[in-house]
Structure formats: C-alpha cells, structure tokens
C-alpha cells in the first residue's frame, strides 16, 4: 500500500511526556479508489469504438456531357450491362443489340466480371482500341442499372465488386423501360 510517512515529530512528543492519543495510522486504504479507477477504465474501453466508418467515393455521370450518342460510341463487344433486381438477383447482358439476359447472384458475379474484363482487354490489345484520354486499355465498360425493386446494399456491393475486380469504367444509370420489360418477374 502507498503510505504517507509523518516523519520528524515522533521524538518531540515523547520528550514532552504529555498524554497523547495513540498515534493514528496515516495509511489510506486505496482499494475502493482503485476499484473505481478500473471500473472507469473498463467502461471507456468498452464504449470506445475503434473502427471508424469508411467512405466509398462515387462519381456520377454528368447528364449534360454524357448522352445516348456518347454511350453508343462504346463498341458493342466492350459493353456489359448489369441490372440489379429484386431479392438480390443480378441480371446481365453483353452488347446492345439482341441482348440475352442472364440471371446470377452476388456470389458468382465476380468470376463473370473477371472473365469478361480479361476477354475485353485482350480484344482491345489485339485491335489497338484505346480510349481518347488515357493511354491504357480500359477493359470492359459496365452500366450498373439498379431497378426500383433493388436495395441500397445491392448497389454498394456491386460498386465494391468493381473495385475488387479492378474495373475502372462504369457508371450508375437508370434502367430503360425496354430493359425492365426484359426482366423475368
């Protein structure tokens, strides 16, 4: 225990020989204080949240710049459209004419994206298709179109897939009525 020494005046008292009360111990029992201290430590450790939220950066297409003519500049073989449907379903098709809609789920989409991206990269390299601004090949162009039945989580997961797979050119666009028509109910 920590103790406070009252040094010095011990002899004085004896010399004078006066009747004195028995000397009290100046030790303080610190146990309750220590208990409280550790209780506070525990409380603050438990309430402190260490994981800070993260922010995912999103850039939306500018409607004034990108219109349908710009979209059609993308070659048919480079494009892929992903529609987010109800119940976490994903519908996707390649190209723009005669689309064949296929259904998949979030557990399988990564493999599909990787394969398509590889295929398009090879195609771009083979034919020397480069975007006007960048010097590197861009890979597959993806339009992400969440339908009204999808959840916010689906969109975030899909954007995350883009980052994981390393697809740089994608945009969040509204689904057209024709596309909604194509989806199985």
């Amino acid at each position: 225990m920590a103790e406070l020494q009252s040094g010095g005046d011990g002899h004085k008292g004896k010399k004078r020989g006066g009747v004195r009360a028995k000397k009290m111990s100046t030790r303080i029992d610190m146990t309750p204080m220590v208990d409280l201290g550790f209780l506070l430590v525990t409380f603050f450790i438990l309430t402190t949240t260490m994981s800070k939220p993260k922010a995912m950066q999103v850039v939306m297409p500018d409607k004034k710049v990108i219109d349908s003519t710009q979209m059609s500049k993308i070659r048919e073989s480079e494009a892929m459209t992903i529609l987010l449907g109800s119940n976490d379903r994903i519908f996707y098709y390649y190209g723009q004419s005669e689309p064949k809609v296929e259904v998949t789920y979030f557990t399988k989409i990564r493999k599909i994206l990787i394969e398509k991206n590889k295929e398009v990269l090879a195609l771009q390299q083979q034919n020397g298709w480069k975007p006007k601004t960048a010097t590197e090949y861009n890979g597959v162009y993806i339009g992400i179109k969440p339908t009204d039945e999808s959840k916010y989580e689906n969109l975030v997961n899909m954007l995350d897939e883009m980052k994981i797979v390393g697809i740089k050119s994608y945009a969040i666009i509204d689904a057209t009525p024709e596309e909604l028509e194509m989806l199985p109910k």
Partner: protein
Amino acid sequence: MPKGNVSIDMTPMVDMAFLLVTFFILTTQFRPDEPVSVSTPSSTSVSNPPEHGKVIITIAPDSRIFFDLDNQNFRKSLLEKMGQSYNLTFSVDEMNAFATGSSIGIPMGGMKTYLDMSPEERKKVEQPGIPVDTSQNLSNELGVWLVNARIAGNNPVILIKGDSKSNYPAVKNVFKTLADRDVLKFGLITADEAMPVEPIK
C-alpha cells in the same frame, strides 16, 4: 524481519490506471443522438471521411431522409439561409436548438414548432423525414438544404449514409437531387470489410 510484509506498493498500478482513465476520457467522443439508427452496408473501401466539414444525408430503412451538417457555427448560418429560402425568421433560441442538434428530418413547415419544443419533447418526436420531390424545385427541400449547406458549410464533403435495406427509389431520389445541383462526386458511408484474399488475376 519477524514477519514477511505482504502489502505491495500499488502506487505505480494506480498511476497507470488513472492515466488510462484520463486517456479514454479525453479521446472518447460520444455519439450524438441520432433520430434513426442505420446499419450501413460494408465495403472494402479504405478512405476515411473527413472529421469535420461534412454533410451527411441519411436514408432510413423506411425511406425517410435526414440531413446533417456537422459544425455548430455552420449550422446556425445554415438555418438562417434556410429561413431566407422559405421566408421564415428564427429566434436566437431556435438557432441554438438547431445548432446543438444532430440529423434533422423535419419539413420546413414544421421546423419552428419543432425547435420551440423542449429537448426532451424533441427526442420523442417521430421525424417524418425531409421531403424529396425531384420533379419540383422548392418542394424538394433536400435540394434547398443542400444548396444552402454548401454555402454555409464552406463547401463541405457530401456523404450518403444509407441503410442496407433501404429501397433503391429513395436512393435514386437522393442521387437525382444531388446530380440536379451538380454534385456528381460524393461518398457513400460504409462499414469496414476485408479485401478478399483469393487471387484475382
């Protein structure tokens, strides 16, 4: 020494304990009372949102929209500017009540009544959310909030905090409101998630 002394000197341990207490007291930031609890989806993003100078648009699971600007001084001038947009004048008390609050989901029509309540009453109010009507300009209050917050908040970072289970139409309305006011870059607040380890190539 006739008897072994069993009392240990606890001073260093106590010092340490109180040092920890002090540390945790000083570093803890208590979360302000949010009008709605939101569980964000997770992503592998690693960038941290800024500590100060941000607008957070919350989308509740039931599609209600809440708006938040994080600095008390900014909030005061934000409310003043909102008042100018809707021809309302707010008293000093109302300004202070707004400045110390957190996310707000009250339409401008009910704002004065809400701010005149006592803090306890205010907590009990079920906030209806900010009206977002993307077809009209002044009835899309989120848009007005946004424009005023960008002036009042000295160009804050715009962040969207959506619940995983929010329906997309609500999110789409927010996106559209932002795009209509030329906010094309913004952040989505997500929880942490580890990058998958399997090889991608």
